[in-house]
């Protein structure tokens, strides 16, 4: 059984993500720092909360986080969790984890914000996370910001909300989704499984 950890910023529902991982046969611990991260085969940064308080809760773990990524321990960032991979976000004043070059910007206000609901995926490149996921699959989004990576080659799928919203990013063992796989029914469960498969290796 693969053992993974969810980092808890103390700001929202991580219960659904935990249930989803457990349904896919992972053993899950909730952690609030990365001191014992060596005990786990993968890390999840959940998608709930607000940028500054969340990044603050990771403050003492920044170095450990960079080591983790360097050592190719799989990390899945969901929504805010993915946004924190980048250098900065328009949601907050504090810097991000800076593991990926680029920034996080507010959706244009000619659209309703947040972008909330089911939207379809346009797959741009093959990806480990999207293995077995069909073009046009519906996934659940709820976000006000979008990521803008410097290297857009890491964008594996996007979604159309009047503008193109990067939906899945992947860079070696670093994975991110703007939508919530744990809330996206069966399709989401496929992606959770794919992530856990990477963790097993």
């Amino acid at each position, binding site marked *: 059984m693969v053992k993974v950890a969810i980092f808890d910023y103390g*700001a*929202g*529902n991580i*219960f*659904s993500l935990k*249930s*989803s991982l457990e349904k896919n046969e992972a053993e899950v611990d909730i952690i609030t720092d990365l001191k014992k991260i060596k005990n786990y085969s993968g890390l999840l940064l959940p998608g*709930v*909360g*607000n940028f500054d*308080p969340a990044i603050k809760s990771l403050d003492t773990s920044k170095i450990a986080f960079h080591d983790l990524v360097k050592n190719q321990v799989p990390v899945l960032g969901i929504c*805010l969790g993915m946004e924190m991979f980048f250098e900065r976000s328009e949601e907050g004043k504090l810097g991000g984890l800076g593991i990926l070059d680029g920034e996080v910007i507010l959706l244009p*206000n000619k659209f*309703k*914000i*947040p*972008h*909330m*609901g*089911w*939207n*379809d995926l346009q797959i741009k490149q093959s990806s480990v996370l999207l293995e077995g996921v069909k073009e*046009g699959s*519906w996934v*659940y*989004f*709820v*976000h*006000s910001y979008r990521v803008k990576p410097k290297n857009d080659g890491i964008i594996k799928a996007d979604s*159309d*909300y*009047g503008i193109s919203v990067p939906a899945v990013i992947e860079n070696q063992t670093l994975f991110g989704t703007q939508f*919530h796989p*744990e*809330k*996206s*029914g*069966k399709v*989401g*469960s496929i992606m959770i499984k794919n992530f856990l498969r990477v963790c097993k290796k």
Partner: protein
Amino acid sequence: MTLTKRVIPCLDVDNGRVVKGMHFKSIKDAGDPVLLAEKYSQEGADELVFLDITASEQQRETIKSLVQKVAQVIDIPFTVGGGVKTLQDARDILLSGADKVAINTGAVKNPEIITKLMGIFGKQCVVIAMDVRRNYELKEDRHIFTSDSKKFWFEVYIYGGKTPTNLDAIEWAKEVERRGAGEILLTSIDMDGTKEGYDIQLIKEIVNAVNIPVVASGGCGKPKHMLDVFLQTNVDAALAASIFHYKTHSVDRVKEYLKENGVPVRL
């Protein structure tokens, strides 16, 4: 393709059972919330809403354990509301496994709670539930509308639709958006329980007043009503209770009907 319209079954929960009120008054028993949640989720519901209509102090623990049970069985988002007054109430519900928390009376009494919640949990978690009724006693500084040549304004009600607040619904919608709400759950008290259709006029006005998603609620008696609200307004989601509870219409069949008639839905 683009963002789809959401179909949301609502479960009014009293003492751990699903019930449905008529004009917020008479109540019929409709079933086990966890079983219904699982069934709706499998049928293709886009989201679920649970409203704890008892919401007394003793109900706190009941609702927390219900939220936990529901979160274990479904893999779509769900909102929980009813009696949420303090940050701690909201926190309890979100940390038990709900994705969003709906606040009505608590936000009218203490609007700062919206900004506080948004600051901690993010605006996507904060749903403002608005129960609205037409008031035909005209007052100054109200948005006045006309229907069947009668003039009225839209007034916000609290305490489960029992108490008028003198608040203009259009202004209140704008204020909750400004304070950081992520969504409005808009119920027409006039139409709720009538099964005669949504209050199209109310929904149109609120949708036009704000730039956050709005969920229409109150009055849905048949799939045609859902089609009407999606075709005649720019609302994001439609909520219904009784048409789904009593097996009159399954969620997937309603969504197929919407799709056949040109509404983008997830199937």
